[in-house]
């Protein structure tokens, strides 16, 4: 197996891109990533996307994007794993290069949420990540499912809604330093408490915004990376794990087993433990999910993920900085692209080019992307060579 490095990154601003289509967003990210890597094309293209069929009435998007990006002829397939589709595409790119079947792999995550005619359509589309027969059929949207988890968590550990505010305040503070973020303005704990409810106890301020966006990375074997670029970043772990889609089918709904398994596999591959990780791009689609992910990955004891945020340990100079460029909450959550945005942001940090948000002496970064309420969880660990 070959060692794999990232030699190029690209991203569009996250937001409501009414003037751009799915293919145009993808092209923008792909062009930026290829030019960053100093390449004109790659051997393979993997596209991470969740909702093009439902929202844009467009499947077969890998070939569409390959053609539109002037890469006609390239091997290209779309990868779908709900909200972790982007990370799954990175995983496939990694497999292709590590296995020696491709020398350069282009990975693009793209989502065009605003093609949905209403927010109800968008919400119904996202509910497809849940168990259709037993969850979505009862009208459970992602917000509603996470509300069930959050209420149980609050009951179990004696917490209140305001205890979750530090996650949101922190994410927005970091987004102010990210020119690609959708919501780059600070919010206060008071604003958090006044936010309108979506699915009690989850309010607008617990939830990541739906958005359009595309991000891309270029991978190649580490022993060739130095020939192409001066600042490659190594992928030292890539791990996927699964769990029951439905929360009622889990052994314990408040423990994300797939998050635990994929993190453990990743730590093992990289030969590291949670204390070695310098920054963690967490999947904070809802504040409760950030807490559960931090606990499953071993950064906090069960029931204490929230305390990490309250005690400032997640700050840029804290013990384990998270959401360093705004996270899903404030950078924005273009679902199928999000997993690639996390990787792009890790590369920015590990190259030392994260501007005002730079985590000092960052050498080892981890990203975790979660599909549904934890049915698929994908963990990557990157390292400065």
């Amino acid at each position, binding site marked *: 197996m070959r060692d794999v490095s990232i030699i190029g990154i690209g991203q569009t601003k996250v937001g409501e891109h009414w003037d751009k289509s799915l293919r145009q967003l993808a092209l923008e990210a792909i062009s930026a990533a290829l030019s960053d890597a100093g390449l004109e094309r790659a051997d393979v293209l993997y596209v991470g996307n969740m909702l093009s069929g439902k929202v844009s009435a467009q499947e077969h998007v890998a070939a569409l994007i390959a053609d539109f990006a002037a890469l006609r002829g390239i091997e290209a397939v779309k990868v779908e794993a709900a909200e972790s589709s982007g990370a799954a595409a990175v995983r496939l790119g990694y497999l292709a290069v590590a296995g020696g079947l491709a020398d350069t792999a282009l990975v693009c995550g793209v989502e065009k949420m605003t093609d949905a005619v209403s927010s109800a359509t968008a919400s119904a589309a996202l509910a497809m990540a849940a168990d*259709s*027969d*037993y969850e979505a*059929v009862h*009208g459970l*949207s992602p917000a*509603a499912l996470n*509300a*069930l*988890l959050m*209420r*149980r968590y609050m*009951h179990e550990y004696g917490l209140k809604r305001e205890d979750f505010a530090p996650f949101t305040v922190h994410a927005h503070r970091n987004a102010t330093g990210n020119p690609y973020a959708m919501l780059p303005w600070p919010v206060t704990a008071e604003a958090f408490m006044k936010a*309108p*409810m*979506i*699915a*009690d*106890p*989850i309010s607008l301020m617990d939830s990541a915004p739906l958005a359009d966006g595309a991000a891309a990375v270029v991978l190649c074997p580490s022993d060739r990376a130095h020939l192409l670029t001066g600042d490659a970043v190594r992928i030292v772990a890539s791990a996927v794990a699964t769990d*029951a889609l439905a929360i*009622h*089918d889990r052994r314990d*709904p408040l423990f994300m087993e797939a998050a635990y398994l994929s993190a453990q596999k990743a730590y093992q591959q990289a030969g590291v433990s949670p204390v070695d990780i310098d920054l963690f791009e967490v999947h904070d689609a809802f504040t409760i999910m950030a807490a559960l992910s931090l606990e499953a990955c071993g950064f906090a004891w069960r029931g204490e993920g929230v305390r990490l945020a309250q005690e400032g340990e997640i700050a840029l100079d804290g013990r384990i900085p998270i959401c360093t460029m705004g996270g899903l909450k404030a950078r924005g959550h273009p679902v199928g692209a999000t997993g690639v945005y996390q990787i792009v942001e890790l590369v920015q940090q590990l190259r030392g080019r994260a501007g005002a948000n730079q985590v000092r002496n960052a050498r080892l970064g981890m990203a975790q992307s979660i599909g549904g309420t934890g049915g698929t969880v994908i963990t990557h660990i990157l390292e400065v060579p």
Partner: protein
Amino acid sequence: MHIPRYWRVQNQRYNLAGEICKQCGARLFPPRDICPGCRELSLDPFAADLSELQVLGFQSERIPQTVDLPPLRV
């Protein structure tokens, strides 16, 4: 959703049907065709008794207030 999809799960849904694994004793609700714990194929049906069930969580979606409109005239 298409009608057959409701039809396939109606017994489970309205009788609260589940299964007990003959090998490891796991209680499966809703039922499955293979035990997720031990891969056993023989599963005994059972109907959940409401008095046994415990509420683990609940949530309420915020529904906008309805506006009082006069009835339509034909």
